[in-house]
C-alpha cells in the first residue's frame, strides 16, 4: 500500500538515523518531523483507495434500496405518488416491518437494466420524488412510526422540467420536514450520496454510511470540470474532497460506518442486507425512549454544530 511519497520518506528517515549525531539537535528535529509525516501518510487513505470507494459505491451490481427492502422488511407496502403531479420512480417510499417494528422508509432507487435505469432516471429524483418523501414523512409523524431513509443518488435531476417544478424549494422543504419530525429517524448512505439530492432525505437523528459508500458536495467529475477545467481529473478531485466514509466520520458528518461483505456489498446482497439490518436495528434501539422534544432538539443541535471554523 506504500505510495511513492511514503517510500521516499522512509528512505530519508533510514539515511538520517544511520548518520552519527554530529549535527545534533537539528537532526533529531528532522527525524521527528519525518516520523510524523509517515504516521500521517499511513493513517490517510491513498488517492487510489478513495477512488476505489467511488467505483464500489457506483458498482452496477451494488444492492439498491428495494434489494434491501426485499430482504429486511416484512409486510412491505410501497406508496406511490406525490398527490400533486406524479409518481417519481427514482425515489421509492413505503411502510413495512423491520424486526417487528413498523417503519416508514424513503429511499433513492436506481435501475438494474437499461430499461429500468431510464425509468428510474438513474436514481436522480425530480421534485415530485421529494414531495412523495415529505408525504410519507407526514404519515410517519401522524402514526408515530420511526423513519428510515436510504440515500443512493448521483444528485437531484438537473433538468428543465425539474427546475420548473421547483427542485431547489422541494429539497429545502424536504430537509425542513425532517427537521420538524418528532419520531426517531435514521438515514443510511448506501451508495452515492450526491449533493443536495442526497441531503434532502438525510437530516436524521442518526446518519450511517456503508463502508464503501460516498457522500459528497458534488460529483468528482463535476468538481474536476469546474476546478481543474477537465472532467478527466476526477480522481484528483475525489482525493481532494474526500467523500469516503472514514473521512465523513472524522469530520463529524456521520455517526457510524456500516460494514459490508468482503470486496463490497455487491459480492453478497444477502450478507450486505444482514449487516445493514443489524445496524439499523441498533440505531433505532439507541433512539428508543428519548422524549420527542429532546430527540428533535438534539437532531437540530447536531446539524447546527457542523462545520469547522478557523
Amino acid at each position, binding site marked *: 500500500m506504500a505510495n511513492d511519497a511514503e517510500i521516499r520518506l522512509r528512505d530519508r528517515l533510514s539515511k538520517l538515523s544511520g548518520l552519527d549525531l554530529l549535527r545534533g539537535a537539528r537532526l533529531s528535529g528532522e527525524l521527528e518531523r519525518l516520523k510524523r509525516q509517515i504516521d500521517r501518510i499511513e493513517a490517510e487513505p491513498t488517492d487510489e483507495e478513495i477512488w476505489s470507494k467511488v467505483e464500489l459505491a457506483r458498482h452496477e451490481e451494488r444492492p439498491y434500496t428495494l434489494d434491501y427492502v426485499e430482504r429486511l422488511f416484512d409486510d412491505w407496502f410501497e406508496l406511490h405518488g406525490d398527490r400533486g403531479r406524479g409518481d417519481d420512480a427514482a425515489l421509492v417510499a413505503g411502510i413495512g416491518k423491520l424486526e417487528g417494528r413498523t417503519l416508514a422508509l424513503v429511499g433513492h432507487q436506481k435501475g438494474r437494466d437499461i430499461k429500468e435505469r431510464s425509468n428510474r432516471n438513474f436514481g436522480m429524483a425530480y421534485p415530485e420524488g421529494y414531495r412523495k418523501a415529505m408525504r410519507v414523512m407526514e404519515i410517519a409523524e401522524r402514526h408515530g412510526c420511526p423513519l428510515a431513509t436510504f440515500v443512493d443518488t448521483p444528485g437531484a435531476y438537473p433538468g428543465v422540467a425539474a427546475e420548473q417544478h421547483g427542485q*431547489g424549494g422541494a429539497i429545502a422543504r424536504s430537509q425542513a420536514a425532517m427537521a420538524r419530525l418528532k419520531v426517531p429517524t435514521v438515514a443510511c448512505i448506501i451508495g452515492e450520496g450526491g449533493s443536495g439530492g442526497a441531503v434532502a432525505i438525510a437530516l436524521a437523528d442518526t446518519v450511517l454510511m456503508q463502508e464503501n459508500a460516498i457522500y459528497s458536495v458534488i460529483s468528482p467529475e463535476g468538481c474536476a470540470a469546474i476546478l481543474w477545467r477537465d472532467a478527466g481529473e476526477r480522481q484528483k478531485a475525489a482525493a481532494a474532497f474526500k467523500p469516503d466514509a472514514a473521512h465523513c466520520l472524522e469530520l463529524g458528518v456521520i455517526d457510524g460506518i456500516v460494514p459490508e461483505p468482503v470486496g463490497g456489498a455487491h459480492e453478497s446482497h444477502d450478507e450486505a442486507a444482514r449487516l445493514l439490518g443489524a445496524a439499523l436495528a441498533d440505531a433505532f434501539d439507541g433512539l428508543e425512549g428519548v422524549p420527542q422534544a429532546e430527540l428533535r432538539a438534539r437532531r437540530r443541535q447536531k446539524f447546527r454544530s457542523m462545520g469547522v471554523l478557523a
Partner: protein
Amino acid sequence: MVEASRIDVSIEHKHAPEPPPKKHPNTCPTCGSHFRDDELDAALRVCTHCDHHFPVKARKRIEQLADPGSFVEEAAELRSADPLDFFDLRSYKDRLAEAEVATGLGDALLIGSATIEEQSCELAVMDFSFMGGSMGSVTGEKFARACESAAAAGIPLVSISASGGARMQEGILALMQMPKTVCAVEELHESGCALLSVMAHPTTGGLLASFASLGDVLLAEPGALMSFAGPRVVAQTTREKLPDDFGLAESNLRFGHVDAIVRRSELRPTLARLLRLFGER
C-alpha cells in the same frame, strides 16, 4: 465523426478557447451603456436605460436598504479553516486570503442588526464577489447566528442571497451547511419570527435548496437566475434546448416559486412594508 463533432466538450478540455474579453463591470451587459461609479451608485446600480440590475456588494446593499448608521455588524471575526487541506490548481488557503484582500470581507455573508424605515430587523446579506458567494462553514455559522439573534430579539430576519451554491473546497462540510441553515430557520420560525428571503442574481444550488427557499415571503430581483442546477449543467446533462428564460426570476414567478419580483428601487419600501406586517413579536 459528423455526430461526434456536434457534441460540445469544451469544458471537459484543458485547452478550452479563451472566454471573450470581459467587459468593464460598469458596462451594461444587456444594452451596452456605460456608467461612472457614482452614476451607477446613485441609480442603486441599475441601468437607467434598460433596467438591467447590476450585482451589488454586501456593504453597498446594506447602505441601500438600512437606515443610515443603523447597521451593527455581528460575528465579523469568523474565518474559514481548511479542514481538508484542499488543493486544486491553487490551495484553498490562498483562495481565501485572496478573496479577503479583494473584497475586504471575512466571508461571503455579512450579518447584523439594522432598521429599515425604522422597522427593526436582522440582516444577512451575501456577497457574490467573495468566492462566488459560495457557502462554507463560516457562511452557515453566520446565517445560523443571524437566525438566533433575530429570535432572541423577536424581530424578522431579512436575507439577501447571491450565491453559486456550496463551497466545493470544504467538501462534505459545505454540503452540511444546508441542513444546518435549514435547522436554524426552523428554530427561527418556531420562535415566531419571520424570514423574508430576497434572491438576487444568482441564487443557485445549495442556497436555493436550503434557507433561501424557506422564507415566509420570497422576493426576487428582476432577471435573477434562481435555479438548483445552472443552465450550463442542465444543457450538458440533458442536451435539451433551454427556454430563453430558464431559471430566471420571471419564470419562477410564473411557476409559482416566488411571491413577487421587486425592482431594486422598490426593495427598501417593500421590505419595510413586510416588516410592518410581520412586525415585532
